[in-house]
């Protein structure tokens, strides 16, 4: 390669490196603002601001969903494996909402540490499966194992995302 081209290539690489470093520094400074939601552990540690609308995300705990008999109000507990937070929501939940599902709820924490949500979004994972395979898993009793493995994986992802 002739010296002029080498010099120009070096300049181009230097531009990429410089911009890359600048963006990396800016993003790491903004880390907290880029995260879409707070995990229950962050809320328990007091990292989440009080008196303002925040998003909380995690897995809906098995057996924690309590529906009111005369209104749309639903109470459930969201966990990341270590800590959990109770969420109260009045409205129509997304189709994918179920126990063990990842969700993101937006709302304010009240004095009792309960998140009064006005929006609940379901978080889908990267796994896709035909219904027959799911049925086969349920029949062979493998589903519990599968769910436990999935939950462990999700919890791990939540933890490593912090």
């Amino acid at each position, binding site marked *: 390669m002739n010296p002029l081209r080498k010099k120009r290539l070096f300049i181009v690489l230097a531009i990429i490196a410089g911009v890359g470093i600048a963006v990396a520094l800016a993003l790491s400074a903004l880390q907290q603002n880029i*995260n*879409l939601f707070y995990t229950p552990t962050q809320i328990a540690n007091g990292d989440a601001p009080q008196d303002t609308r925040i998003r909380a995300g995690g897995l809906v705990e098995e057996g924690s969903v309590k529906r009111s008999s005369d209104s749309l109000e639903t109470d459930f507990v969201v966990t990341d494996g270590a800590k959990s937070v109770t969420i109260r929501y009045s409205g129509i939940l997304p189709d994918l909402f179920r126990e063990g599902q990842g969700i993101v709820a937006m709302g304010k924490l009240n004095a009792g540490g309960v998140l009064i949500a006005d929006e609940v979004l379901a978080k889908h994972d990267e*796994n896709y499966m035909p219904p027959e395979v799911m049925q086969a898993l349920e029949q062979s009793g493998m589903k519990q194992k599968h769910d436990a493995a999935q939950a462990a994986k999700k919890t791990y992802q939540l933890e490593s995302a912090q």
Partner: protein
Amino acid sequence: MNWTWFHKLGSPKWFYEISRRWLPGLAVAAALLLMVGLVWGLAFAPPDYQQGNSFRIIYIHVPAAFLAQSIYVMLAVAGTVGLVWKMKLADVALQQAAPIGAWMTVIALITGAVWGKPTWGTYWVWDARLTSMLILLFLYFGVIALGNAITNRDSAAKACAVLAIVGVVNIPIIKYSVEWWNTLHQPATFSVVTKPAMPFEMWMPLLIMVLGFYCFFGAVLLMRMRLEVLKREARSSWAKAEVSAQVEKGR
């Protein structure tokens, strides 16, 4: 390593000749792959146990998102070649690929929104993946606008090349956004290096669609570049001869 093919790309005439031979193969491959992938993915692949049939949008969404990012990397590579080796063809490739990339980004964003409503419960959320993808769309708009705003071809080429190179920093951010931050968007289902998180009969049509999209992009890009080369070389004798031959054939 033999670099003669690379240096030959400096000649627009050589590119025009060689692309004539590549084009039919790419076009046929794209048509076949897209047809097989669409029919298999939309009609025969099994539905998902949670989302039912709405998951099928993955067969459009994922290939479009793959291409949107790959095309931007290609813009940056073309920009580097244009700046370092002063190759005229690099600017042709950059200018002609940018609108295709912008369209792919639009397709990925729209299909994602359509899928998001029934699955997540919202069309749009400002999480890191969705926002960085929107920034990619604006980067494409910037490259296209800059290329059209400057009349002098050499200055426009330089400006676009620099913008494409600077913007490429966004690509790793898009890719790793789902791992670095908490997002609503799920991590990658489909990866070239690891075992996919779906069974074969769902995954194979997706692979076919991805390959089909790449062939489609290759064919469309070559067609656009050939036309642009003819326009830019309009004063050279070979281009004049080619145009008059085409006109003769059209009669």
